């Protein structure tokens, strides 16, 4: 049981961060506005959570100009993908073990 909980990743223990990772897992990239609209969060909110994930090396930031307007796009790194997958597996195991305890 201890083992399972240790795999629950604290870096993903927040709705917004979970959302950002989920979106980046199934998309090649997502830009700032897309994240903001999908998650229904404020600019500051998205900025601080992306920064936290970036610090962990889970996502990568690419800044460029599209039609002379600055554009920020985010990508999941391999480390991030692996960590998120492990987090999902841990969640699944945890929920399954919970079910067994309730049933018995």
């Amino acid at each position, binding site marked *: 049981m201890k083992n399972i909980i240790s795999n629950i990743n604290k870096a993903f223990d927040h709705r917004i961060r*979970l959302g950002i990772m989920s*979106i980046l*897992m199934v998309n090649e990239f997502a830009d700032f506005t*897309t994240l903001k609209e999908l998650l229904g969060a404020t600019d500051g909110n998205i900025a601080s959570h992306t920064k936290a994930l970036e610090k962990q090396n889970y996502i990568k930031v690419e800044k460029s100009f599209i039609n002379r307007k600055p554009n920020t796009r985010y990508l999941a790194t391999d480390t991030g993908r692996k960590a998120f997958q492990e987090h999902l597996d841990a969640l699944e195991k945890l929920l399954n073990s919970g079910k067994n305890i309730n049933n018995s």
Partner: protein
Amino acid sequence: MENKKYLNDLSEIREMMNRSSRFISLSGLAGVFAGIYAIIGAVLANILLSNHGSLYVSGDSSLNVDAEDPALQSSLTVIAVVVLVLAVATAILLTTRKAKKNNQKIWDNTSKRLVINFFAPLTAGGLFCLVLLQYELVGLIAPAMLLFYGMALINASKYTFNDLRSLGYANVMLGLIATQFIDYGLYFWALGFGVFHIIYGGVMYNKYERKKA
């Protein structure tokens, strides 16, 4: 207690993965309308053709049709274009309405990807059908339309409801079967574009839209 939070997490993850990669506002009702237009179009075409006693409805083999009647060809083209325009317009209208209800933007990354992946194989198929017309292999046009439309649907299904894939496979199979019954091309066409659309649209409407309305 904790479990509830993790369950919420999981449903949140699933929703975000779907919402960010799939266009979920595609209207099922539009499929029903498209099917109805297609059947009306096929009935009109059948009337025109039986008046001319040629092509699909005649008994003799019609893989090659010579002595094309230009008036007949142009009126058939008009029917086809009107059916297509009506179907697409209805789909856009109903899908926009559904997107508004879902608070989703009609023209975002997901819908763009859906449109590109749907129309790329379909355009190739459309051009191929024009080539068939060029060589007067008219009998193969209906099967080819079904085949390419089915493949376009299979391709597009990755970017919207998975259910679209079944409609795609059904049309591909029907198209292949139709190649063996060249004389009945119009009936196969009506079955694939008409009946299948109505069934699919009805199922989708029941599954995703009715309970929310």
